[in-house]
């Protein structure tokens, strides 16, 4: 590396200029060197030449040389040693800016060899008379801890930081808190630390008071750091919780959105300790306007705010109950903002505002963006399911949309109608002819399957049901599997309802499905039906025409314990993803370790832990799905049992509703790490939900309803292979 460059070329010229006797020329050369470095050229060969220019009175030049050092320190650690002297000298400079610059840069050098020289100057700077130097030194401790934790502990820097929490300067306090928090997180995430270990930075009552004082004085970013620390504090009693809330509430008025969200987080956490109904109400009321104001921020900030509002509404649906109008989409909002707004609008829908909402959703359905239009139509369906009294109006809007005859609008509307039929059976039979008249429009499997399900369900009231189903039976082998499954079921329903006229068609479909179909799912189902029908038609009726539980819109999209956990993370990535941090950071903190931990936790925390495990268990989905042929049926319950926790929660209802928050979607998106994963799963959410267990409008009662003696049941259906292929 340090072989001199040939005596020509750009680097050579730079090297000559760097050694020039003229000050200006040298400075210019440094700038050019940095410029080359910035665009990615290798200028590491100039290291000694640049280093010579380090001792200078020109602050700008010094900064540039330091910058160069930071960039190449890692690759040229031997040479950086040469710079140490100057650094140490600079930490004694009369100018505080230079002192701070030197200590800041030394911390960023990231070279093992230089660290040992860092401790003495750092010791000095932590006690510097100038707050600017102190606040820089405080962060430097965190940098050092990241590189060599022992050094921090041996030199007593932690104790020093703890003293600095009482510093008179608010910025020093803020940075100290930030550094301590960082060290605390690094220390507690180490493997081998148990949760009984209190950690490096425990916030005591006396620290709490210092933080509350500094909160009102320090810069906006400092406030975020302090608020984050306050969020970790465990209040001793109700009075203290109230006190914290009262002191933090004024931060709602801060212009910086991240301060507002950090304040919301602290309030949400400490509100748990507040029992005075009236104060809780007051806090919630004060929270609403700042949240709404966040919606006039730039789109990215809006999006973060919207994701968090979505969470907050799951916990406290009343926060924004009168504010639905502010969530109306603007024509020029970016798509990701619009989609979030839609979701929140449905959450806020009530009998009072449903008319405004519907006319708005109808408006969106005529926009250009296909994705958005589809989501808007879905939202109409969700509104209908949520508010019974408005269902009829929703259906009318859907009929209007179907009459536009725009292909994707019609298809989505049909899918949505299916859900409405499930929620309100036999209420809207009148519109079935309209739906059927659009049969030719449908080309997507989901829409087709939905219509077929509707036909099957109402086979006794549709005169030409056999004719309509006949179309699908004729093209059976060309259809997608979900459509095949639905066709099969619908024809069997038809047969059970009108046995006289449909003998032929049921024979035909069972034949085709068992002989010509290459999906084991479809085949298996056909066999089951066949045997049921031939052995005991009454049993077939009981199974196929069984009463299904009604569907409803889940109030929450995450498990309650997880929701609490996420509300403690407001503003962070976890709250934006609606997933616990463990799932995307990828440390994999599950397994024996966390189980052991679980034993030590209180009951409350334990449930949180459990919810976390459930979600993280998604990461082990491979294991769940990977049961082999032999002990297939025995393996299945264990596989299902693992998802048990989720299916007991409202998320199960969600599954039934066929919305996208199918836990499997989550599994896949965690795993596949790409949108494609979630998308390509879409068809399987319909027919099989991945376990070959009919979930959406499938007729058979859950897996336990399968005759266990079935010899031909092959446990890993092909769909699961598809799933595994994704992983």
């Amino acid at each position, binding site marked *: 590396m340090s072989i001199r460059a040939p005596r020509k070329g750009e680097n050579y010229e730079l090297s000559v200029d760097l050694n020039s006797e003229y000050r200006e020329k040298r400075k210019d050369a440094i700038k050019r060197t940095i410029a080359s470095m*910035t665009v990615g050229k290798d200028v590491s060969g100039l290291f000694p030449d640049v280093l010579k220019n380090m001792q200078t009175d020109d*602050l*700008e030049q010094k900064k540039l040389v330091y910058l160069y050092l930071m960039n190449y320190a890692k690759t040229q650690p031997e040479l950086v040693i040469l710079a140490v002297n100057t650094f140490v000298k600079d930490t004694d*400079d009369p100018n505080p800016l230079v002192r701070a610059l030197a200590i800041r840069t030394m911390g960023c050098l990231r070279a093992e060899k230089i660290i040992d020289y860092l401790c003495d100057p750092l010791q000095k700077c932590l006690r510097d008379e*100038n*707050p*600017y130097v102190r606040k820089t030194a405080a962060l430097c401790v965190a940098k050092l801890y990241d590189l060599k934790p022992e050094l921090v502990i041996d030199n007593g820097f932690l104790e020093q930081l703890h003293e600095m929490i009482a510093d008179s*300067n608010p*910025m020093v306090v803020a940075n100290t808190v930030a550094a301590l928090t960082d060290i605390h997180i690094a220390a507690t995430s180490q493997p081998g630390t148990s949760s009984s270990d209190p950690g490096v930075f425990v916030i005591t009552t006396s620290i709490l008071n210092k933080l509350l004082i500094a909160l009102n004085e320090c810069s906006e970013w400092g406030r975020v750091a302090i608020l984050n620390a306050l969020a970790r504090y465990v209040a001793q009693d109700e009075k203290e919780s109230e006190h914290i809330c009262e002191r933090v509430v004024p931060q709602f008025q801060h212009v910086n959105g991240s301060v507002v969200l950090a304040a919301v987080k602290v309030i949400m956490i400490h509100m748990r300790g507040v029992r005075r109904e009236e104060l809780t109400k007051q806090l919630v009321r004060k929270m609403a306007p700042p949240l709404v104001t966040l919606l006039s921020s730039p789109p990215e900030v809006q999006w973060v705010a919207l994701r968090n509002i979505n969470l907050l509404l799951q916990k406290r649906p009343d926060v924004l109950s009168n504010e639905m109008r502010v969530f109306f989409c603007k024509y020029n909002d970016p798509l990701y903002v619009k989609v979030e707004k839609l979701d929140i609008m449905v959450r806020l829908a009530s009998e009072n505002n449903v008319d405004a909402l519907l006319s708005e959703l109808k408006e969106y359905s005529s926009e250009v963006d296909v994705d958005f239009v589809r989501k808007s139509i879905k939202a109409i369906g969700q509104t209908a399911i949520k508010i019974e009294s408005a269902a009829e109006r929703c259906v009318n809007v859907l009929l209007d949309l179907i009459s536009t005859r725009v292909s994707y609008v019609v298809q989505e509307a049909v899918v949505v109608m299916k859900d409405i039929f499930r929620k309100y059976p036999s209420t809207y039979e009148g519109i079935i002819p309209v739906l059927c008249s659009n049969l030719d429009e449908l080309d997507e499997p989901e829409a087709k399957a939905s219509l077929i399900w509707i036909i099957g369900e109402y086979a006794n009231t549709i005169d030409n049901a056999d004719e309509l189903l006949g179309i699908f039976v004729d093209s059976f082998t060309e259809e997608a599997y979900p459509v095949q499954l639905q066709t099969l079921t619908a024809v069997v329903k038809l047969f059970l309802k009108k046995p006289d006229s449909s003998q032929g068609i049921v024979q035909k479909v069972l034949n085709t499905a068992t002989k010509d179909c290459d999906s084991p799912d479809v085949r298996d189902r056909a066999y089951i039906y066949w045997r049921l029908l031939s052995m005991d038609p009454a049993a077939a009726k009981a199974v196929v025409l069984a009463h299904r539980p009604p569907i409803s819109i889940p109030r929450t999209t995450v498990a309650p314990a997880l929701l609490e956990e996420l509300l403690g993370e407001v503003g962070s990535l976890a709250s934006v993803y609606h997933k616990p941090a463990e799932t995307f950071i990828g440390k994999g903190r599950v397994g024996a370790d966390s189980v052991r931990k679980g034993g030590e936790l209180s009951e409350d925390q334990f449930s949180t832990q459990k919810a976390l495990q459930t979600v993280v268990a998604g990461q082990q989905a491979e294991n769940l799905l990977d049961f082999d042929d032999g002990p297939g049926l025995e393996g299945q319950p264990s596989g299902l049992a693992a998802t048990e926790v989720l299916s007991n929660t409202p998320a199960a209802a969600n599954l039934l509703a066929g919305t996208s928050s199918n836990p499997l979607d989550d599994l896949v998106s965690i795993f596949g790490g790409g949108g494609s994963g*979630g998308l390509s799963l879409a068809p399987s959410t319909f027919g099989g939900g991945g376990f070959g267990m009919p979930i959406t409008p499938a007729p058979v009662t859950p897996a336990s309803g399968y005759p266990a003696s079935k010899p031909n049941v092959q446990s890993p259906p092909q769909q699961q292979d598809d799933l595994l292929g994704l992983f």
Partner: protein
Amino acid sequence: MLSLYSTDDQLPTYSGYKSYRTATSGRLSSHWGLPASSTLQDSRTNANAALVFEYCYRFINICKSYFGKIDEEAVKNNFVVIYELIDEINDFGYPQNSEIDTLKSYITTESIVSSSIAAEESSKITSQATGATSWRRADVKYKKNEAFVDVIETVNLSMSAKGNLLRADVDGHIQMRAYLSGTPECKFGLNDKLVIDKNEKGISDAVELDDCRFHQCVRLNDFDATRTISFIPPDGEFELMRYRSTSNVKLPLRIIPSVTEVGTTQVQYTITVKTNFNNKLSATNIVLRIPTPLNTTTAECKVATGKAKYVPAENVIVWKIARLQGGQECSLTASAALTITTTRQVWARPPIEVDFQVLMFTASGLIVRFLKVFEKSNYNSVKWVRYLTKAEGSYQIRF
């Protein structure tokens, strides 16, 4: 930065990202790519997403204030200053001081020489950068003490095709330019309903503000307790507060659209604009963007006031009116000729967008009632107030 987003199918993209990366490339890994600096790198930790975005926008604002604009050229020309700025406003991933006024005092486009005199100057700077009033130097002096207050309101409107108000609200911000000596203590009063109800009864022109947010110089505790806005202002220009109002919004312009599709080959427009304020005032720079179907070939426009022309690239008729006095109205008639297409996609009818400015008018009705300045030396100060209501892309009328 990019990996901050979830892997869902819609990803927000960060508009300033490109220039941002140019500014910091080569540096991301060495300087910021540390655990706490999730701010700018990958999501190895549970980063504070809200803070990241706020910070990015702040950085862009700082750059704009330094170079006037932020684009590739500005970044190339000023990379040294940008490095210095980043170094100063971000340490180990933690945002530090981002007050433009303070930054400008020690990060300049000219080089600073560190001498013994400068050392004294720098300790002033450092104490300011970290102090309780990090936004203000102590030794400001002006011959004439003046303060300018600009109340700027942006009206958001969406009106349905039937003329119903779907949403009308005002995002206001109060911009202040303070040229005041010493460390002045300011008190600021508005005709805010909550304040007025408490203090003086019987004044009816009070405005209801849904929410206010303040610059960090305003004492939030005071506001929370007594609704008084008191502060020590930064020197020069800053945004004192932002507010939002949704009740009794006075809409300065009324648009009456009538758009009919004649068969499949023609669309006819009659658009009337009415001003809805005192005739001493006038709206300026009015721009109406009237959407046409995608298969429009030509459009004929007739206007009595202003200029209108069809812009095929954007599928809109742009109608510009330089000035329109209060109480007046004017209209446009146009017809767009369409080609015949095979698809029977219905025209989505995007809303008409209107941009305008009205000076000395506030849509919310907000008025600055007083601005009091207290300073030790007890000087007299002159205060100026200006009002402006405008709309930029968010005044939308469906038809």
